C-alpha cells in the first residue's frame, strides 16, 4: 500500500472543513445537559446536599445526639431554626446529619442492584439462550413481589441497621436493573458496529467492554439516578414503620415517624424531615429527567 494513493480521489472534507470542534458523545451530552436549566438546578441541589453531608460536623449547629429535655418539640426559633424534636434535639442538625444516611443508602443500594442486576442482565442479554432463561425467570419471581414488600421481608428477617437496609433495598430492585441492562445490551448487540468489531477479530470480552457497555450506559445512567431517589424513599419508608435505621442515628424517615405522634401539638417535627426527603428526591428526578433528554439521540434532530 502506498501513499501516492492520495491523488486517487479528491479527499472529501477538504472543501467543507470541520469548523466545529470535534466533540465526543459524552461532551455532547454534557453540553445538552448544561443547557437544561431544570436539570442543572437538580444537579446543584444534589451537590449542595452532598456538601452538607460531607461537612455535616462543620455545618450543623448542634450535635445530632444532644438532647435537651427542657426544650422538647419546640417550634422553630432563633436557636433552633427548625425547632426541636420529641427528645429536644435540634432538627436542623439531625436533618443535616441525616443527609449522610440517606445519600449513603441511596447510592450504595443502587450500586448493589446495579452491580448484581446489571451483570446478570448483561450476561443474559449478550449470551441469550439458557442462561438468559434461568436469569430472567428468577427476575420474574423477584418482580412478582412488590419491591418495598421484599425489602420489608428481608429487613424484618435479618433486622434493621444501615447495612441491612442498604442490602434489602438493593436486592429488592435488582430485577429492574437486570431488565433494563438486558434490553439495552440486546439492542446494542444487534447493531452493526458490534458485528464490525467481530469482523476485525475482536473477542467477546473486548466487544462487551469496549463496544457494548459504553453504548448501553445511557438508560442505565438515567435509571440509576432515578433509582437513587427510589432507594432513598424506600429506606425512609422502612424506617418509618420502624424497620430501618436504628436510633440515635438520624434518618429522615425515622425522624418523621417520631414526629407523627406530635402532629397535633408540634407539626414541625414531622414536616421538616419530609421536606428534606422531598427536596432530595425532587432534585434527583430533575437531574434524571434532564439526563434522559440529554442522552436521547432523537432530540438532536
Amino acid at each position, binding site marked *: 500500500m502506498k501513499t501516492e494513493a492520495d491523488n486517487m480521489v479528491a479527499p472529501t472534507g477538504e472543501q467543507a472543513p470541520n469548523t466545529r470542534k470535534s466533540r465526543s458523545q459524552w461532551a455532547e451530552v454534557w453540553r445538552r445537559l448544561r443547557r437544561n436549566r431544570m436539570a442543572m438546578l437538580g444537579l446543584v441541589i444534589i451537590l449542595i446536599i452532598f456538601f452538607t453531608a460531607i461537612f455535616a460536623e462543620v455545618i450543623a449547629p448542634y450535635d445530632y445526639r444532644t438532647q435537651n429535655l427542657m426544650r422538647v418539640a419546640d417550634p422553630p426559633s432563633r436557636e433552633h431554626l427548625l425547632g426541636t424534636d420529641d427528645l429536644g434535639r435540634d432538627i436542623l442538625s439531625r436533618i443535616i446529619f441525616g443527609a449522610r444516611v440517606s445519600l449513603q443508602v441511596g447510592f450504595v443500594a443502587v450500586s448493589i442492584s446495579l452491580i448484581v442486576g446489571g451483570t446478570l442482565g448483561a450476561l443474559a442479554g449478550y449470551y441469550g439462550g439458557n442462561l438468559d432463561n434461568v436469569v430472567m*425467570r*428468577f427476575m*420474574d*419471581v*423477584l418482580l*412478582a*413481589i*412488590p*419491591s*418495598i*414488600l*421484599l425489602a*420489608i*421481608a*428481608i429487613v*424484618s*428477617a*435479618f*433486622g434493621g441497621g444501615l447495612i441491612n437496609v442498604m442490602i434489602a433495598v438493593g436486592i429488592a430492585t435488582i430485577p429492574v436493573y437486570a431488565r433494563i441492562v438486558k434490553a439495552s445490551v440486546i439492542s446494542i448487540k444487534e447493531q452493526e458496529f458490534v458485528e464490525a468489531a467481530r469482523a476485525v477479530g475482536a473477542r467477546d470480552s473486548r466487544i462487551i467492554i469496549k463496544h457494548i457497555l459504553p453504548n448501553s450506559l445511557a438508560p442505565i445512567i438515567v435509571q440509576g439516578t432515578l433509582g437513587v*431517589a427510589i432507594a432513598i*424513599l424506600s429506606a*425512609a*419508608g422502612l424506617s*418509618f*414503620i*420502624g*424497620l430501618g435505621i436504628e436510633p440515635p442515628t438520624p434518618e429522615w*424517615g425515622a425522624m*418523621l*415517624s417520631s*414526629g*407523627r405522634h406530635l*402532629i*397535633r401539638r408540634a*407539626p414541625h417535627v*414531622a*414536616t421538616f*424531615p*419530609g421536606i428534606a*426527603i*422531598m*427536596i432530595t*428526591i*425532587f432534585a434527583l*428526578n*430533575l437531574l434524571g*429527567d434532564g439526563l434522559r433528554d440529554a442522552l436521547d439521540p432523537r432530540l438532536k434532530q
Partner: protein
Amino acid sequence: MHKYILRRLLLLIPVMFGVSFVVFTIMFFTPGDPAKILLGERAPEAEVQALRTQMGLDDPYLVQFGRFIFNALRGDLGRSLTTRRPAAQELWARFPATLQLAAAGVLVAVLMGIPIGIISATKQYSLFDGFSMVLALIGVSMPNFWQGIMMVLLFSIVLRWFPSSGYGTFRHLIMPALTIGTSSAATITRMTRSSMLEVVRQDYIRTARAKGLSERVVINRHALKNALIPIVTVIGLQFGYLLGGAVLTETIFSWPGVGRLMVDAIRQRDYTVVQGGVLLLALTFSIVNLLVDILYAYIDPRIKAQYK
C-alpha cells in the same frame, strides 16, 4: 386468545412457586425460634422442644419447604404466632380493605393521570403543561407517608373535613386513597404525556392529518389508543407499587388491611403472618399483571395476532 390466557395462567404457577421459595427461604433463615415466640421467652426448654418437633421445625429445610407448599396449596399458611389463629384466615379477613384501598388508589391515579397527561401532551410547552409537569414531579418526589401525615394535619386537624383514621365509609376512604394514589397519578401523568408525544411524532399520525381529520379526531382516534399501550403496562406495575405502599398508608390511617396486619406482625415477630402476607400480595399483584396483559392484547392487535 384463549391460548394466550391459558399460557399466561400456566406461567403463573412457576412464578408463584418461586415467590414461595424466596419468601420461605428468607423467613427460614430468620434468627429466632417460632416455638419460643409461641410459648413465650420463659417457657421451659422441654416444652419448646416438644412444640418444635410437633411443628416439624427440626425437619430438613427442603422437607419443611415441601410441607409449606403443600399446605399453602390447600389454603393453609400456618398459624399466627401471636393469635394462634390460622394466618390465612387473619389475612383473608383484612384483604378486602387492602384491595379496596389499592383499587381506589389506582382509580385516583388513572382518572387524574391520563387526562392531565393527554392535555399536557397536546398543549406541549403551554402554561398548563408546565404547571402540571412541575406538580407531577412534586407528586413523584413526595414520600407518601409524609403526604399522609400532612393531609391529616391539614384536613383532619386544621380543617376538620375528614376523619384522620378509621374504615367503613366513603369519607374514610378519601384521604388514604389520595395518599396512596398521588405518586402513581404523577407517574401515570408523566408516562401518558411522553407516550403521547412519542406517538404524535409517528408517520401514521401524519397520514391521519393528511386525510383532513380534525386535530381532535387525530388525537382521540389515532393517537390515544397507541399511546395507551405502554400506559396500561405502567398501570399494572403501579398496582404492585400500591400494594406495597399500602403497608405504609394503612399504618398512618389505621386502615384495617393486610399491610397494617403485617406491620403489627413484624413488631411481634409473627413471621407466619408476614410470610403469608407477602405471598398473598405477590399473588394479587401477579393476577393483576395477568389481567393487564390480557387487556394489552385487546388493545394491540399485533399481540393478539401472535396467539391466534
